[in-house]
């Protein structure tokens, strides 16, 4: 087997040094009946690289890649152009095949980019500190609520109806163990009166902006209201490119920001791996989950970086840790930070404007179709339309014509009949006028 360096001779020599007769002698602690012969495993035998590549390629080819069709899906994952330098760099052996930087003297590469990543995330979100990543936006949101529960010593969380339903479910699953989770009702395309729900038991209010229907929210009044009741505002961002054009949550009073970083540097990957961004006010530092990288000096006084404040973490603090997270999104943070370094201030702000311009053009175009209504008045690169028919079958019909029209709201909220005609569409810098034309003509056809 090409990945296994030991030859039969090597194995014999090693067994001899050990003084074991055969390799099964090394498994002597395993109860005999549990030591299974190979035949117990009803699975295929080893194959060469070419055969494996063929099998996988066949599976891949039976999917329609986003780049292979006019494509408009968003709702928490976005198709952006990632510069080729990103993938080249993250595949450097020294980044790809290194572990968590537990030996800082020989992991300065990883540590420095984590420090830079934390700095970028703090700048983008307008927050004071950021960690070295969590799994993704949804789990980051759940961690944010748990953190708010710890800080406020209250259990209740109010989840905006504009929060991505998958995020809300993720939060409920874990934070729901420690207090009631209230989802506020919302009319897609408008903001609910969430302030009315905040009370003295509230640990936090969780508001996504732009929300799952694309609507840009105004966080400041919510922050003020939450703070007035001793609650925290958790701002959620699923499309981080929006921060190139929109006021950051930190400038609007957010206490914690949980965001999905996939849009920058990372592919769609059918849902993962993504990268959870997590930023907070400095005073909550010691309640933060996840790894933190900090600056220090070495024995010769040279600047260097180390993982720090690990007394918050499971490997030191065990059941008292702020989170159980260990493996995080390492390499995805690297992709994020490289892409953001390539973009820089000018690139990111331009990219954000292009996205908004594209989405605006698409919205105008769709609004012109008979029976189609754009329900999101203010948006970044994503908005919701009401079709004259249920959206899901329309999307399937268009898919059959190789147009990937977006995400029907019913996919996220299948039990809610009031939203079944709603369709969420995203447009990014990757969409062309041809894409728009293909979509509107296909949609026109399907709605006729």
């Amino acid at each position, binding site marked *: 087997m090409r990945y296994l360096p030991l030859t039969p001779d090597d194995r014999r020599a090693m067994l001899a040094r050990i003084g074991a007769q055969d390799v099964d002698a090394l498994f002597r602690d395993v109860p005999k009946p549990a030591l299974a012969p190979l035949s117990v495993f009803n699975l295929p035998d080893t194959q060469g690289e070419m055969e494996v590549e063929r099998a996988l390629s066949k599976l891949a080819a039976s999917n329609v890649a986003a*780049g292979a069709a006019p494509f408009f899906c968003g709702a928490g994952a976005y198709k952006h152009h990632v510069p080729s330098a990103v993938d080249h760099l993250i595949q450097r052996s020294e980044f790809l*095949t290194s572990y968590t930087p537990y030996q800082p003297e020989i992991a300065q590469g990883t540590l420095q980019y984590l420090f830079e990543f934390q700095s970028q995330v703090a700048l983008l979100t307008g927050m004071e500190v950021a960690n070295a990543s969590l799994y993704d936006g949804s789990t980051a949101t759940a961690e944010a609520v748990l953190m708010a529960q710890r800080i406020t010593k209250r259990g209740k969380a109010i989840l905006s109806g504009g929060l991505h339903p998958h995020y809300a479910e993720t939060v409920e699953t874990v934070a729901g163990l420690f207090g009631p989770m209230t989802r506020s009702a919302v009319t897609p395309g408008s903001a609910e009166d969430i302030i009315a729900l905040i009370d003295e038991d509230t640990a936090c209010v969780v508001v996504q902006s732009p929300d799952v229907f694309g609507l840009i929210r105004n966080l400041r009044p919510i922050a003020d209201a939450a703070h007035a009741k001793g609650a925290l505002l958790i701002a959620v961002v699923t499309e981080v490119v929006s921060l190139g054009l929109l006021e950051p949550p930190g400038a609007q009073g957010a206490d914690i920001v949980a965001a999905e970083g996939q849009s920058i540097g990372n592919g769609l990957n059918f849902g993962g791996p993504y990268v959870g961004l997590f930023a907070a006010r400095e005073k909550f530092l010691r309640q933060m989950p996840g790894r933190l990288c900090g600056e220090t000096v070495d024995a010769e006084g040279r600047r260097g970086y180390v993982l720090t404040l690990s007394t918050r973490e499971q490997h030191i603090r065990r059941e008292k840790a702020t989170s159980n*997270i260990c493996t995080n999104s390492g390499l995805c943070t690297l992709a994020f930070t490289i892409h953001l370094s390539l973009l820089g201030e000018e690139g990111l702000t331009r990219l954000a404007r292009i996205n908004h311009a594209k989405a605006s053009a698409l919205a105008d175009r769709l609004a012109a179709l008979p029976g189609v209504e754009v329900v999101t008045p203010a948006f970044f690169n994503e908005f919701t339309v009401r079709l004259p028919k249920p959206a899901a079958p329309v999307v399937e019909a268009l898919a059959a014509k190789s147009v990937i029209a977006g995400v029907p709201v019913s996919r996220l909220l299948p039990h809610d009949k009031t939203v079944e005609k709603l369709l969420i569409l995203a447009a990014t810098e990757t969409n062309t006028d041809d894409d728009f034309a293909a979509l509107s003509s296909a949609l026109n056809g399907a709605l006729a």
Partner: protein
Amino acid sequence: MSMNNQGRPTSSGEAFPASIATISGDRGLDHEEPLIFELGHGAAGVDLPDVDVADARLGGQRRKGAIGLPGLSEPEVIRHYVRLSRMNYAIDAGLYPLGSCTMKHNPRLNEKMARLPGFGDLHPLAPQSTTQGALELISQLMTWLTGLTGMPAVAMSPKAGAHGELCGLLAIRAAIAARGKNRKRILVPESAHGTNPATAAFAGFTVDEVPAKPNGHVDAGALKAKLGPDVAAIMLTNPNTCGLFEGEVKEIADAVHAAGAYFYCDGANFNAIAGKVRPGDLGVDAMHINLHKTFSTPHGGGGPGAGPVVLSERLAAYAPIPLLVADGKGLRLIEDMTAAPDGTKPFGRMCAFHGQMGMFVRALTYMLSHGRDGVRQASEDAVLSANYILASLKDVMSAPFGDGPCMHEALFDDAFLEGTGVTTLDFAKAMIDEGYHPMTMYFPLVVHGAMLIEPTESESKASLDRFIHVLHTLASEARAKKTERFAGAPHLAPRRRLDETAAARKPVLRWKPEALKQAAE
């Protein structure tokens, strides 16, 4: 001066006159590298048109201030990261014997397959008719995972081992609740990985530690004694974190089940037994599998990983959404609790979307490449290599749990360093000078000054022999109180020892623009 045939010097070279520092601060191929913020100068590494947009649809939320991101051209960005990378150790460059971390070879084919547009450029919410190949891949991987573990079901969405632990405990919690019970206590051996107790607390349980026996195994007697009506589960790692197989596992499982509790197995060490032992045959109810360890997703400086959880018949119904089902039209994801098939009662959702597809592709590629025979051989080779190290070093280092055999990792403690003035940390840092990444240190907690060596199956015998020679010599020198190598090591790495205390005392966690810094002062 003479040379041997591999170009290794028989004595050290003339040092660059110690009194002279380089002008640049760089030294040969070793470059110092400023922060990206210190390098930025208003250039851009992308070419994007400068499009103007109206405020009309921005809800009054247009950004007012600048972000403060540095601007660099593409060549500058590439150089920055290439230089940073060169300060890192990596499996690709050397043996990486981090116990419990399974730094095995990461085949390049896996990377290539994960980047096929049909996987890498596939949206999680694209119409399911356009993602059948992806669903088929997940389904095949599920067959492998259940087949290798002998378990009936698997939840695919957990994003790492710890997330898998949480998934397992939440399934147990749901199963207990379904029985109308309320059990709050989880038994965790003291040798457990930190994520075990952390997860138990995360899932709202209390943690009760079970002591280890002097031979490194969990004290089954003590464990049984702790069982009771409030015990929800035990979390047992097997092979355990001392690198030993818990031989009494079946009896423990039986006792746990008899007490109405569940058996969560931490499967981080599954790589020692994959293709040899099926956890399902040992009474396990739930076990996460670190795809990034056993099935070789590169560790990427800390992640990402994936932690699918196999589940017993007793827990299968509680698996979280999304669920993958086959119907007449092909494969389909059930993404909503209200749509769960009859007989299932998903406890909730672990995360948005369907899990770590990128890791699934790599894992299936790994499995198809190895086949069941290769997976088995890999486990055997991993165990063989660890035992080889144990057998070769036990004369100079101290193995707390006797002569073995061990499983896939060899555990030593610091007894052999006693009175030498050399600590476990010194010993580890001296390894850095020798071109090796240190082993896992000070874990597991059950032995003093632990050094946990996991060579994996990916090292040749020659590589192991060289490693053994270096460690043997280091240990002998330490015992002989020849401590020059150890004091203040590493000497030859990009940095000398870093001041971790200072870092924690006054945390500097980000770069700040001068304006902000001054304001803070």
